[in-house]
């Protein structure tokens, strides 16, 4: 029997019973599609959490004044002292460490902002030009704070997306002047709308140079220093260096706290791992459901055709040929069913992505491969295996079955 005839015959028997074929393909494609959609959802949830963290920036350390001790009360507290503040020079001194790449000093205060007759209360963030990249923020218009001397207090500001909308509406904003407290600032840029990121809404802030913020709020201390380590491996040395440098600059007092993003991430690592396991579990369950579904449909379909197998034998087909016919038929059926399922699943994923745009839904490649493998595997196994058994029967036995 020639291959083309085998394929034709197999295709003919699929087309010969349209309902059965469609039902089997439906079972198969629902199996594959459910794996694709479920793992897509699970992995999307996992990626969502990861993205939330990386939107903070990568390889970050956070330095802030004061030290949280669990071992009793420091002597300074008894005297009513507040911890020594971190100055801009302290921040710049951190750059001496070889493990530290960039630093972003931050001062935060709130102030009245006004433009023409409009005014509102805003959070004012004093920072430096590095902030844009270190925090992975993006501009909508104009430019960010100018690079250069960190001590220069230029009167420029960058507006958050919502502030810009409320104060200026559709008016051009670059080059306009706003009043912050008792000073006037020229707008040089606006931030792209990014929404809330780890509880910090960048749409509702105004960013000015850190030195200007110190003058505006009449302080000299920093609220935070974001420190970017040069690499992931440099995070621990950077932490150590930062602590040592500030220890020496603060006359041998350990009065700052340095936390690593990793410390935060480590807490969430367990959550992430649980999520990964959950995705794997979801995939395994939907795969086995799909596999059993396909198995049943195939077993029933073949047992209905034992008589046909007997006839083929009576007409001179050896068992091997019958196995071939069923094998090719199973490949055609499972192949088409799986591809249909894949398309169905991707459509499902697309629909979910439209409904929840913030969730990065996408089926991981291993789940897609496993889904295809399972459906093809079970489809072929559970049609060839019973067909094989039927082909071993003496034709008269097979013909007698009805």
């Amino acid at each position, binding site marked *: *029997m020639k291959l083309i005839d085998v394929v034709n015959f197999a295709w003919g028997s699929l*087309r*010969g*019973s349209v309902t059965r074929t469609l039902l089997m393909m439906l079972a198969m494609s629902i199996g594959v599609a459910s794996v694709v959609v479920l793992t897509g959802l699970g992995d999307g949830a996992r990626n969502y959490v990861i993205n939330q963290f990386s939107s903070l920036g990568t390889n970050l350390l956070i330095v802030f004044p004061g030290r949280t001790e669990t071992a009793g009360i420091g002597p300074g507290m008894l005297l009513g002292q507040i911890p020594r503040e971190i100055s801009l020079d302290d921040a710049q001194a951190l750059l001496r460490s070889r493990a530290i790449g960039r630093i972003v000093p931050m001062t935060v205060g709130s102030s009245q902002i006004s433009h023409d007759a409009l005014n509102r209360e805003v959070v004012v963030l004093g920072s430096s030009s590095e902030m844009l990249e270190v925090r992975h923020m993006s501009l909508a218009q104009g430019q960010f704070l100018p690079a250069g001397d960190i001590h220069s207090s230029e009167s420029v500001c960058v507006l958050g997306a919502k502030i810009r909308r409320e104060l200026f509406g559709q008016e051009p904003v670059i080059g306009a002047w706003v009043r912050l407290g008792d000073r006037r600032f020229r707008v040089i840029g606006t931030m792209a709308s990014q929404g809330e990121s780890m509880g910090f809404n960048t749409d509702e802030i105004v960013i000015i140079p850190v030195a200007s913020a110190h003058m505006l709020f009449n302080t000299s201390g920093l609220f935070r220093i974001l420190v970017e380590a040069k690499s992931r491996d440099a995070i621990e040395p950077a932490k150590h260096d930062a602590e040592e440098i500030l220890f020496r600059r603060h006359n041998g007092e350990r009065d700052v706290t340095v936390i690593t993003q990793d410390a935060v991430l480590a807490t969430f690592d367990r959550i992430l791992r649980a999520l990964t396991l959950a995705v794997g579990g979801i995939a395994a369950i939907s795969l086995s459901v799909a596999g059993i579904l396909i198995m049943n449909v195939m077993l029933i379909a073949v047992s209905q055709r034992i008589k*046909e197998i007997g006839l083929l034998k009576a*007409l001179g087909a050896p068992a091997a040929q019958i196995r071939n016919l069923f094998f090719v038929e199973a490949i055609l059926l499972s192949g088409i069913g799986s591809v249909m399922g894949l398309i169905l699943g991707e459509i499902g994923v697309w629909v979910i992505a439209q409904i929840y745009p913030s969730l990065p839904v996408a089926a991981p490649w291993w789940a897609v491969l496993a889904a295809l493998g399972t459906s093809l595997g079970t489809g072929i196994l559970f049609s060839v295996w019973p067909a094989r058994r039927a082909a071993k029967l003496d034709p*008269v036995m097979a013909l007698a079955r009805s």
Partner: protein
Amino acid sequence: MIELSQVSRSFMVGDQQVAALRGIDLSIAAGDYVSIMGPSGSGKSTLLNLIGLLDRPTSGTYRLDDGNVTDLDDEQQAKVRSNKIGFVFQAFHLVPRLTAAMNIELPLILAGIPPAERKERVMQLLENYGLADRADHRPDQLSGGQRQRVAIARATSMHPAVLLADEPTGNLDQATGKEVMNLLEQLVAQQVTLIVVTHDPAIGGRAARQLHMVDGQFIGETRRGT
């Protein structure tokens, strides 16, 4: 050309051994027209299935064309069936999804005959059996007589030496049955060995050699014209 010696066949029914054939000796020459008659359960269909290599004897030997075919493996058996034996069943056993022409073509496809030759042979068979205008009809669109004619055309498509018919008229009315028998008998004229199993004396009586069976044994033989 067909030589059975001491052939027995028994089945397990539940835990009981039931003998369907008991030590059958039979020899049929090429071109013979033989009918096997007997009541139902006499073992005549079992005998026919054994001759057609659809079943295996429990004991005894079967020689076909001077070769022992008793212990052939599956593939060799299939080859013998494909090249030498044609079947006509009571229930026709046509593949419902295939057209008349495709049903006739089936043994040719299984034997790996090139498409051009297949087409030619199928056209010829359709013509011979008066089915030319039914070529594209599926079995459920054909009458009983037409279905059996398709089955006979299919059985003869590989030019078998032996044609085995198990109650070929069992599902047909008398007139159509006669028509089908005429077609089968035409093949005998072409040197095909025809073996017909039936419980109907009117059908069986047409054969040149008539074997009577009861309880898995021959109880007599009649020859026409003697």
